[in-house]
């Protein structure tokens, strides 16, 4: 009996009223979901339409829903940290709890919010932009999503079962090793991030092949929309960067689960090797979440300036340059780890070089606006706000690149302010921009402009209130990851302002969530399929797009293909639509969701060193792969009559 209570008190996280509150709410929400699904008899619908789908648009929507939830979780973490730091000597969180919260905040925001949000947007937009009916490997796409989902759930479970990781999102050895960190928390980090990382790697391969092989006839690479270009380049980065992380995580898993000595203090392990491997993925990762939003901003700025993107070719080549440079700058994350002067000099300069293509892009966006006819829609506001705010993040990045100066900035609040300036003004503004921009294509109605603009202004101004003072806080000597600080250093008032800004951003997010609900009930229908006067192919089809996307595959002859079609139409040179043919589409499959459930079981088993649970999980995963290899009938034909019926319902066929 004693051993059972002992086990339970370690298995469940105990002792904190906030955790008990979370326990109760998790149970209640789960029960509520079960009740609603059962009461409205929606289980079958959920299974057939969503859980087993291989439709890239539905997978994209699932990515975005999950990412928004994770964004909420990561945001709550942020507010908890900011509450604790609002005043000197606060006791809202104790040290260990605070350490877990900043670790989960970072990991969730990067791995389980930013990346999946981008995957969601690219799932929705890329096939539509290049005139394809699905991605190259629809089944693999579903596997990617469900692996991400399994990883995210495993990671989130940690705060109620077993305890969360507490070594920071970068999990530096040796602190993250069992010698100094014996609990299950870091195991959660390793397994959860690994599982979703496999999915990310597969996504990279999937979109590389999709973009290279499935473009509409006539769409050469240099006629592609800029967002598709950004995803092509991002896919290449993912394919080259993720294996390093996969290996690093696997090695540390060997250390922690099987007693290996890759990164340990003892037996000749090299803790610094972890830093190298982590950042060899970690720095390209920055561009994995940034290049796609560069693509989104390019689309949105061109659309709402009603001009073709300025300097298209340079825009592409600067992204290529950024992607190459991103692999030779990783060491700037640890200039202060005893590198010799020549080494630091090399990485200082390689990092500064990134400013050149990035600066070129900024000027090209500015000159896209120049001589344009600018419409201040909600997506455009996010895109416009990106330019000055991201520039601040960019120039402070150049300051950080100067190694001797970095000796003073490193690990300080200055650094924290810098990467939030780039990740929020870049990635977060970008995904919100893309969300508003492509929302009508996803759901057939628009998000409300008035409420959207409120959310934008509140979030954007609060962002500045939060992160501008933080630069000064860093120069005042406050480091990152401190759970408390004494009075008398002058940090108190600055921290208080920062906390106000953080809560303001929370309010902005809530307004946006409210706008989503409000618009779902009252939003303006998008009956034309082209609510923004768009320029690229996704706007040429009805909203929401039919299962097969394009009834007939368009032929492309220029950039901004849809704009050209509209001009042809105005000039009366419209081509007669081709006759419909039956369309070959992939079947649904239950294997991805089942396989990721086994992956979850295996992961959970490894976290607790329970091999009796982990091994059956692994066998289940392999079993799913074998089962899949025996599926011969994996696609169906959509008959012409059904295409006609669908197109007629969308008003495209009289």
């Amino acid at each position: 009996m004693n051993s059972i209570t002992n086990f339970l008190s370690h298995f469940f996280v105990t002792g904190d009223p906030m955790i008990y509150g979370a326990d109760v709410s998790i149970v209640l929400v789960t029960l509520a979901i079960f009740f609603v699904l059962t009461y409205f008899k929606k289980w079958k619908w959920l299974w057939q339409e969503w859980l087993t789908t291989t439709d890239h648009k539905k997978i994209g929507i699932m990515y975005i829903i999950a990412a928004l939830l994770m964004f909420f979780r990561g945001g709550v973490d942020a507010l908890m940290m900011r509450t604790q730091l609002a005043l000197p000597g606060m006791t809202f969180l104790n040290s260990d709890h605070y350490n877990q919260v900043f670790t989960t905040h970072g990991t969730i925001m990067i791995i389980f919010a930013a990346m999946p949000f981008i995957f969601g947007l690219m799932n929705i937009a890329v096939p539509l932009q290049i005139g394809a009916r699905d991605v190259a490997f629809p089944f693999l796409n579903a596997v990617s999503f469900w692996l991400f989902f399994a990883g995210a759930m495993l990671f989130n479970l940690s705060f109620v079962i077993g305890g969360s990781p507490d070594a920071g999102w970068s999990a530096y050895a040796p602190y993250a090793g069992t010698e100094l960190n014996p609990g299950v928390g870091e195991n959660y980090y390793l397994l959860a991030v690994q599982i979703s990382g496999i999915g990310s790697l597969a996504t990279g391969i999937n979109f590389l092949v999709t973009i290279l092989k499935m473009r509409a006839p006539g769409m050469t690479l240099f006629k592609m929309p800029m967002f598709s270009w950004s995803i092509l380049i991002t896919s290449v980065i993912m394919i080259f960067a993720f294996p390093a992380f996969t290996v690093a995580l696997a090695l540390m898993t060997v250390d922690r689960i099987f007693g290996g000595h890759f990164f340990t203090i003892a037996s000749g392990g090299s803790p610094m090797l972890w830093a190298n491997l982590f950042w060899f993925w970690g720095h390209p990762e920055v561009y994995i979440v940034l290049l796609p939003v560069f693509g989104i901003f390019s689309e949105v700025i061109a659309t709402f300036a009603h001009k073709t993107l300025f300097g298209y070719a340079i825009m592409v080549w600067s992204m290529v340059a950024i992607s190459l440079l991103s692999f030779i700058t990783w060491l700037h994350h640890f200039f202060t780890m005893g590198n010799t002067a020549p080494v630091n000099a090399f990485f200082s300069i390689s990092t500064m070089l990134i400013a050149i293509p990035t600066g070129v892009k900024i000027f090209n966006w500015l000159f896209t606006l120049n001589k344009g006819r600018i419409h201040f829609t909600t997506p455009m506001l996010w895109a416009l706000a990106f330019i000055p705010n991201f520039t601040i993040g960019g120039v402070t990045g150049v300051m950080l690149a100067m190694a001797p100066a970095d000796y003073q900035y490193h690990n300080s609040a200055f650094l924290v302010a810098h990467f939030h300036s780039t990740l929020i003004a870049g990635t977060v503004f970008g995904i919100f921009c893309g969300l508003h921009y492509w929302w009508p294509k996803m759901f057939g109605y628009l998000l409300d402009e008035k409420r959207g603009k409120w959310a934008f202004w509140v979030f954007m101004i609060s962002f500045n209130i939060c992160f501008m003072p933080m630069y000064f806080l860093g120069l005042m000597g406050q480091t990152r990851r401190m759970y408390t600080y004494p009075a008398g250093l002058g940090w108190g008032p600055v921290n208080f302002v920062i906390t106000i800004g953080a809560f303001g951003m929370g309010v902005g997010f809530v307004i946006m969530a409210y706008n989503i609900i409000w618009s779902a009930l009252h939003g303006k229908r998008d009956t034309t399929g082209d609510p923004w006067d768009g320029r690229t192919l996704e706007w040429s089809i009805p909203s929401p797009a039919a299962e097969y996307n394009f009834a007939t595959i368009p032929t492309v002859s220029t950039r901004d293909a849809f704009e050209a079609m509209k001009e042809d139409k105005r000039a009366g040179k419209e081509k007669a639509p081709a006759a419909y043919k039956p369309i070959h589409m992939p079947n649904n499959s239950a294997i991805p969701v089942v396989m990721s459930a086994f992956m979850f079981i295996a992961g959970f088993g490894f976290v607790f060193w329970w091999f009796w649970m982990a091994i059956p999980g692994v066998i289940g995963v392999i079993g799913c792969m074998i089962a899949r290899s025996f599926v011969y009938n994996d696609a169906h034909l959509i008959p012409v009559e059904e295409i006609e019926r669908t197109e007629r319902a969308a008003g495209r066929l009289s």
Partner: protein
Amino acid sequence: MMKTIRAKAAVILLPLLALLTGCSDKIVVMNPQGPVARSQYHLIVWSLIMMSLVLAIVLIIFIYVLVRFGRRKSKGFDPNDTGNRKLEVIWLIVPVVICILLAVPTVKTLYALDQAPKATAAAPSAVHGKTLTIDVTSVQWKWLFRYPGQNIETVNYVVIPSGVPVRFNLHAYDAMNAFWVPELGGQQYTMTDMPMKLWLQADKPGNYQGRSSNFSGTGFAHMTFTVQARSASDFNTWVNNVKSSKPALTHDTYMNLLKPNTVKPQTYSSYPPIVAKDLNKAQMNAYMNGQPTGNDAMHGMNMDNSGKGGK
């Protein structure tokens, strides 16, 4: 749009105002008290000037295009304005020039910081040479300072002579930490498998706050120490006082110090031989069990064992 700009200006200007009105000594990085911090400060100011210039250019063009082309009936709409080779070359070259202007002083400072700073005062007699060497060990969550030349050990504070270059040799007993005294100079990590060095020097006597800047666990936020810079005569007096009135560090007390906890500043007039072995946690465990520690082999790998900098 004007609303954002005004809000932004307020946010940027308020702390600047605070800076100008007398609490500038709180902005420690911008208040250098030694040659190392000063060379970094000069670099920071130079980069701030260049980057403000870049930011200003971007903001001016940004505001211009929004004001000029954001109105409902603005003239000059030209959908065929899709590129301009001359302009694109300009904004390729300008950042290249800026990068060069920043890279040159960066590299110069990097090489300079590898060497001892120039002494501005004669070293006190207790230093036995022109520079003082102090071995620093980070332990969860405290700082141990060892004076090998003086046979003194202090905890969570360190006394140095002002105007004299001090070479800190950095080690970690367990977790990685970073040794940072912002008023005297930038940080350097402490690690278990690689000894590192950091040159610092204080211009004048005074107390400077130091802390760990790399997260190392529960007590990390409390991992602070004071650097007390003293004049030559005061430094000699301090050394003599320690030698005559402070207790010796015993083997058992040292073992207690290695446990993860936070402690108050302490002073010891000597230390047992085990301290000088610089064992990390794993080696210490091996040593206590009578096994080989492997520390000799490790010293063979040192990137920097000669005192000449990592070359």
